């Protein structure tokens, strides 16, 4: 079998095509990602993503680490969904050992995940507006995200990489102020979220740059495995919280946001609506956190029984799957992460075809990519 060289792809271009490199240090990629773009005049012919600039080999590192240590690596995949990534590995370990965590832990995990989801969508909203030249968006988004990070900082001392959810429960109990401050934040953000709509949603320039741009059909979304808000903008019902409820999601009432258009606008609307839904979930749980322990007693050395395990959770970006092959030792024999951004990224070539090069930035922004999650 012949290995395909990248230079072959370049020479295979038709005459008159332009090849343009975007990245790896382009601000709109929100990380280190290179797109090689083939242009016919101003129109995109196709886009080839090149990843691996920040590949750290997390899956290989996991083979030399115990399960509590692995928790700290998962933060660093999708750093905007740190709680959900921790939760995925924790639930997997608990499931494999047959440990039942206290109700209190389940409630707190769900609240933290939803707070994290709001924070992630806020940062995405801020950066998405900024990608298209609306600098005010960035200040609005970060202003409100700061409130959530302050709550996190008070409870677990860290703002971005928490490693707070661990096998067996939580690293510690929540701060006595946690419930009060979370409720204050919800009251505050319920007033502020309509401002987001005033600034971007009704903006005619923004509408023209997103409506009808980068249309993804439902079939494509499923075939490419585009999950999370990216898939739900194409009417692909892929919410793990609804399909396979974990933690306390079976106790709360919320809507799965679905849009049928499949364009950048639909993906934008899904995320904005999800912030409302997340607030609804938190409100249902925050006053009802049961009393009890914040953790079950785990053995000092966690060894998973021999076998293969998997667990899926819904992060802010989509469907995160964790897969472990264990041989009964304290290290996993093989650990694999199915990360949502990896699948979401490769749709971009399909979405960009026939659009102008300036829209590449808007379309890749609407996918909400976090590059360390792709490279792992």
């Amino acid at each position, binding site marked *: 079998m012949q*290995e395909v060289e990248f230079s072959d792809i370049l020479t295979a271009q038709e005459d008159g095509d332009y090849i343009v490199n975007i990245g790896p240090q382009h601000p709109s990629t929100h990380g280190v990602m290179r797109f090689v773009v083939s242009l016919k005049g101003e129109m995109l012919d196709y886009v080839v993503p090149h*990843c691996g600039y920040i590949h750290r080999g997390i899956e*290989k590192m996991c083979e030399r680490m115990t399960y509590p240590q692995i928790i700290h690596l998962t933060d660093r995949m999708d750093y905007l969904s740190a709680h959900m990534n921790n939760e995925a590995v924790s639930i997997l370990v608990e499931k494999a050992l047959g440990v039942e965590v206290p109700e209190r832990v389940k409630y707190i995990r769900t609240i933290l995940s939803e707070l994290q989801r709001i924070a992630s969508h806020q940062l995405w909203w801020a950066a998405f507006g900024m990608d298209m030249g609306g600098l005010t968006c960035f200040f609005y988004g970060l202003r409100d995200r700061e409130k959530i990070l302050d709550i996190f900082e008070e409870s677990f001392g860290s703002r971005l990489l928490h490693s707070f959810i661990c096998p067996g429960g939580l690293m510690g109990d929540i701060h006595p102020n946690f419930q009060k401050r979370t409720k204050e934040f919800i009251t505050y953000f319920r007033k502020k979220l309509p401002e987001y709509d005033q600034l971007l949603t009704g903006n005619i320039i923004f509408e023209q740059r997103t409506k009808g741009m980068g249309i993804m059909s439902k079939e494509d979304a499923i075939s490419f495995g585009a999950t999370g808000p990216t898939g739900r903008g194409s009417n692909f019902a*892929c919410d793990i919280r609804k399909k396979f409820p974990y933690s306390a999601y079976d106790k709360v009432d919320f809507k799965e946001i679905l849009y049928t258009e499949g364009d950048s606008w639909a993906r934008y609307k899904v995320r904005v609506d999800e912030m409302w839904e997340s607030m609804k979930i938190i409100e249902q749980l925050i006053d009802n956190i049961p009393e009890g322990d914040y953790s079950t007693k785990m053995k000092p050395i966690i060894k998973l029984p021999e076998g293969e395990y998997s667990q899926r959770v819904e992060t802010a970006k989509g469907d995160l799957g964790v897969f472990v092959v264990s041989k009964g030792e304290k290290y996993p024999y093989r650990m694999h992460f199915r990360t949502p951004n990896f699948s979401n990224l490769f749709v971009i070539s399909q979405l960009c075809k026939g659009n102008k090069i300036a829209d590449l930035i808007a379309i890749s922004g609407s996918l909400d990519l976090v590059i360390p999650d792709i490279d792992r």
Partner: protein
Amino acid sequence: MEKEQLGLVLAELFPAMEVVTSGEHVRVKAAPAEFHKLATTLRDDSRFQFDFLFNLYGVDREDKFSLIYNFESTKLGHIIDIETDLADHDNPVMDTVSDLWKTAEFQEREIYDLMGVKFSNHPDLRRLFLEDGWGFPLRKDYKDDINFIER
């Protein structure tokens, strides 16, 4: 379809395969030679309709490679795991399913990059993360004298 029923229908269609329904999901052990045929049936048969290849990963079992495919049907809601063993550890080759599910193209590229499993008929089998000539780090016999500390 329910787990047991799905297992029964599959066992009837492909009598040579080993179908296990005791785990969390139905797990099928398929031979690499008939894998592409099985995958086509799983996608197109109206009883299965596995249109979503959720995940695909490889395991180096030292004497052989295992590839594990996780399929889900978005219409019928059932899940199946398919495992195939590639007995040739030095030169593992597998049929691609990127013609059936587009996500397979990139997940197979990742497996080729990190594990060295080649996929025949793949449209674009290049390395995804690492440079050409790096070696295959997820193999158990991978050695890196500079960046690796033995303990």
